[in-house]
């Protein structure tokens, strides 16, 4: 992906008709593969996302560590205070987070820990718009193209930039792609991404016990809510005064200035609270027990 700035991506999108079409054309050009083949591959990834949601919504069991599990089902049958589309999007996001924590099959988007946001937001947007599967697949290309700009200008790694680089980036990718799916112009897509990312600047990576579970599973849902809010505002014509390319650079700078204790090391934030410590210690004992009981032969 050679789009190093959103300005370049938006220019290509104006030429090709959408962010998704521009991203697909660029990928085909750079890899020498046919657009048709690339679409088939992305369609396959969409199927994995859908299966991960279905798996998460149908199970009550806990993860290997015992820290998470069963909340997707809980949300899905919840009161839908704001409405069913919003509730279902949150449930989808938690479902993927829980499937990931159970060692199920997921699509990193952009990371495994943040893999729930993009599918949850795009499926909700597609349901709302009555979009076709082809349009949904195109939106995934759009999300990827925004992610590639973030990778080029900042980082997608929690260890390097905190949670804002993972859930924050996922929300920005999802918001831009959801706007693209609604047929919004490229500038509006950029504002959707900027609005989503600005809302999560400074978010730290503080996983309890160092595991991709607490708060990661829930942050997929809260990140989804932020992305939907950003999309809604951008489609209404709200313009964020700082351009997306600059918001991304700010995210990278904030990430670099975070102390290591707040970048995935489990030494600060929620992980360092009394409850976080207790849960983390208990989780590691639990998973050791599970390990030895499933294969005494293979353990030292």
């Amino acid at each position, binding site marked *: 992906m050679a789009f190093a700035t959103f300005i370049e991506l938006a220019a290509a999108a104006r030429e090709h008709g959408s962010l998704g079409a521009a991203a697909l054309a660029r990928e085909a050009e750079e890899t020498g593969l046919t657009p048709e083949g690339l679409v088939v591959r992305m369609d396959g990834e969409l199927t994995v996302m859908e299966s991960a949601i279905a798996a998460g919504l149908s199970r009550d069991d806990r993860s290997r560590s015992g820290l998470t599990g069963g909340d997707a089902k809980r949300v899905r049958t919840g009161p839908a205070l704001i409405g069913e589309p919003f509730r279902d999007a949150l449930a989808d996001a938690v479902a993927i987070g829980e499937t990931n924590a159970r060692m199920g099959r997921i699509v990193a988007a952009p990371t495994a820990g943040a893999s729930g946001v993009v599918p949850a937001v795009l499926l909700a947007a597609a349901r709302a718009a009555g979009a076709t599967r082809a349009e949904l697949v195109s939106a995934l290309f759009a999300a*990827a193209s925004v992610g590639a700009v973030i990778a080029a200008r900042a980082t997608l790694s929690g260890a390097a930039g905190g949670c804002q680089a993972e859930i924050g980036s996922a929300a920005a990718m999802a918001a831009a792609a959801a706007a693209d799916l609604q047929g919004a112009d490229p500038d509006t897509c950029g504002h959707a991404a900027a609005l989503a990312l600005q809302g999560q600047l400074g978010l730290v990576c503080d996983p309890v016990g160092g595991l991709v579970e607490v708060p990661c599973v829930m942050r997929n849902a809260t990140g989804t809510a932020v992305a939907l809010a950003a999309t809604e505002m951008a489609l209404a014509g709200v313009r964020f005064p700082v351009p997306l390319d600059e918001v991304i650079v700010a995210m990278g700078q904030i990430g670099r200035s975070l102390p290591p204790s707040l970048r995935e090391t489990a030494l600060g934030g929620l992980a360092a609270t009394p409850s976080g410590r207790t849960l983390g210690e208990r989780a590691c004992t639990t998973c050791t027990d599970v390990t030895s009981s499933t294969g005494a032969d293979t*353990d030292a």
Partner: protein
Amino acid sequence: MRQRSVFDIIGPVMVGPSSSHTAGAARLGALARAIAGAEVRSAEVVLHGSFASTGRGHGTDVALVAGLLGLAPDDPRIPEAKALAEKAGMRVSFAEGDLGDVHPNTARITVVTVDGARVLVQGSSLGAGDVEVTLIDDFPVRLTGELPALGVVHHDQPGVVAAVSARLAADVINIASMQVFRERRGARALMIIETDGPVPDETAAGISALPGVIAARSVPAV
């Protein structure tokens, strides 16, 4: 930094929960198996740093076993890898250890193959599923598994590198990168050649037979 594809951003398809601690671990296991060049009978694994402290909860141990069995990072059987290993008669032991000044996500894997060959492979998971093997036996190396590769153990003498690259040229295999390491002047040396296409077994066999070459092995991308 390598070229980013859209499928590096939306992707890879993998078994969770962590691209570094699970998907990367599976790839390291698979690379160790590929470098050993045969099915694994047993392996001793030393987990270092974050692999040791949070590896269990991320399934790092299970993913390494899966890789040693030859399972891909998106194989849904990864969670049952230990049971599969037991069924296949493959024994894997884990210990925690300090491997020195290395990346936090590092594993040292000593593999014994069904042919009785013993190979030490040390590697790190760098994030986003990217890995790097940094030690093969006594040789410091750099092998990512992104591209197919050819490993050649040879005597440190003039003409071996030229003969090996001539054979690759004759078989129309393009060299993407090449590294040569030697124990000391005139002793054993190791060539790691990354190629744009897979190296057929016949090519590797032909290279094994070249003067000065002790052994050559094709290592597929993982």
